């Protein structure tokens, strides 16, 4: 069954990349311009008519977001993953909410977590999980978790903190050597 799907890609998108293939599973990668055509083809002519999930990976090193649409064919029990890379800066990805209304929820979540905009989604920008989030979207790799945690929540009081390296040194008298006392003062 999965061969038929693969065949469809070979004819319509000869430049597609095969990421992984199993007996009822196919993961392909297409360029960003062909992504929508590939999804429409999968739905209309290959029987993958259920949108299970839209997932995102922040490939900050390559300057792209990798978006993956996971489509299922319940009749044939096959799963098709279509991935495409979109430039990271001001990232825009076409919305699927006109094809699958459920896509709207996934897209709102991705907008909130990664800041990726889906033009065509009527409910974009509505609060999804993070109420009134003003910062960098938290799942972006350039989001500084530690800096945010310290700025927003601060140190929790009373907080005891012991540095193992200093603690071990103090216990064994590391700086109690003839020259060490002086050096510790310099430190």
């Amino acid at each position, binding site marked *: 069954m999965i061969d038929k799907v693969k065949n469809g890609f070979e004819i319509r998108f000869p430049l597609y990349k095969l990421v992984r293939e199993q007996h009822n599973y196919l993961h392909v990668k297409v360029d960003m311009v062909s992504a929508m055509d590939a999804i429409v083809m999968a739905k209309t002519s290959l029987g993958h008519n259920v949108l299970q999930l839209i997932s995102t990976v922040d490939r900050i090193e390559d300057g792209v977001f990798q978006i993956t649409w996971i489509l299922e064919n319940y009749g044939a029990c096959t799963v098709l993953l279509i991935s495409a890379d979109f430039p990271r800066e001001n990232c825009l990805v076409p919305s699927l909410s006109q094809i699958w209304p459920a896509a709207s929820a996934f897209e709102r979540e991705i907008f909130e977590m990664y800041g990726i905009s889906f033009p065509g989604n009527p409910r974009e920008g509505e609060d999804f999980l993070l109420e009134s989030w003003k910062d960098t979207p938290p799942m972006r790799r350039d989001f500084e978790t530690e800096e945010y945690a310290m700025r927003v*929540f601060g140190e929790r009081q009373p907080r005891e903190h012991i540095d193992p390296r200093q603690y071990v*040194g103090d216990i064994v008298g590391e700086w109690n050597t003839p020259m060490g006392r002086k050096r510790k003062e310099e430190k």
Partner: protein
Amino acid sequence: MKFTDVISPFLAWSRAAKKVDTIPYPNQQNPGADRYRGFHINDTSKCIGCGRCETICENKAIDMVKVEGVDPAKGDSGLRPVVDYGRCCWCALCIDVCSTGSLAFTNSYSWVTENPDTCRYTPGVDQKPWDNQEKGFRQNNDVLGWAGSPREQMEIETPEKRIENFDEVVKGYTIDQAMEEAARCIQCGLCISACPAHMHIPDYLKAIAEGRFVDAVKLFYDNNPLPEMCGKVCTRQCETVCAMGYQGESIAIRWLKRFACEQFESLADVLALDAQPGEPNGKKVAVVGAGPSGLSAAYYLSRKGYEVHVYDRLEKGGGVSWYAIPEYRLPADGISKQMEVFEQAGVIFNYGKDVTKELLTDLENRFDAVYLAVGLQKPSDARIEGEDISEVKPAFDFLMNAPDKGQKLTGKKVIVIGGGNVAMDAARTCVRLGADVVLSYRRRIEDMPADDEEIHEAMEETIDFRPKTIPIRIERTESGIRYLYHEAKMVDNPKGGRPLPKPKDDVEHAVDADILFSAIGQTSDIEFIPESMQKGMKLKWGRIIVNESQYTGYKNFFAGGDITPGEGDAITAIADGLRAVQGIIDRLR
């Protein structure tokens, strides 16, 4: 009105008697998935308190704290992580990097508390209902490899080539390799607790990782004036407790120390003002023995402004560490390089002075304090029948006479008895001089007190290892000597400790040879100490018993190194020297 609107209420009531699909929480709870990331557990007996979990935590949810019932020990800081669930995001990085793999998640996820500030606990210490939960996310270091990593490989000469000459076996790191290796350090500081001299290991590893080699050398000299020697032949107790060693390989601390020293032709120039004599305070101290312990005491006393005179019976400083350790482990060039530093620090050396009763009496009268660091001079008796045959010699004496300089043993057959470093050195030296070597040891190979690397390298060098062999006697034959032994079986020691070797049967096995070296240790010879002094000191098994500041109890006499009971390695001797310095300063104050 539709028909369904009329019928619906009745249909709903018809379900009232059916079993419900939801779970009656909290009486019954839905278990999390097998690898669910729930609350932490920590095996506190495995945890070493290295603090990696705290360092990696982006949310600052983990703090290392002191806990009751866990005391700091060698290789364990005694600190344990406390987790704040107001901040934890269950990313599991703490578990992925845990050095020993003691930290894990359970699949328990529900905990109701009214006060958010109490939503923190120390896993493994504070009792929780999920403590014995077996399911939950666990570390998989085989996949990630974050908890431990392999060491930068050191280039080593092949066995075939190295037995042809006395060139150093280990070739040393390149700058890139050293910086890479030093960068593996996680700065937990557990190594400091294991090093007898408590060297600033994390600090100098950091300096090496950042390319600050001068700083590294200065840090060595803070509590070890023989870093190059230690960089080559130290027993490296630090590496045995390294946090990286639990699931990977420990940091090559010894090789890195050697590397930093090898970057400079003159250590005296590098140290410059950091190795000058201190402001003279008018007090004089005599140090007897120019081995690691004596040199350490001399160096720091001189830096503190004492006038220090070192006496040694040999013609050069360094003691047995330098004389008896063969060239292929510790090349002689390093000696003079390190001795320069002592001279720059103002230490006065008196070589070729036999240590006698007269000398000690003289020192007692002329100096404010005396530090005895004479080491162990007398090879132990093998207590084997026939050991007085002239071909039976102590390996220690053989090594002390620089056998690498010209001697030849080509075609000879040599037997070495013993399993310590001296035995390995003697056996490997004989192989290099062209002899066929048989090494006989009473116990198993794993019981040998020699360094693992030494044993491994010796085995590669065509030495015939005969462990579990009990010597019977040595006989003279027409062409040389014959060594007879029983094969041993190991029996449990009723007093505990290592299993004891006992003869397996009455069969006498024989090996013919030309020379036999016995290397079963050295004992002390305290005949040089006048009786009046001996009476004031506490002696046991020919060694001097000292207190924690190396004081002997007799006038202003201090002692350290192998003449006092201890580990018997160079770094322990150096540590003794450091303690003696503080003891002498306090006593002469």
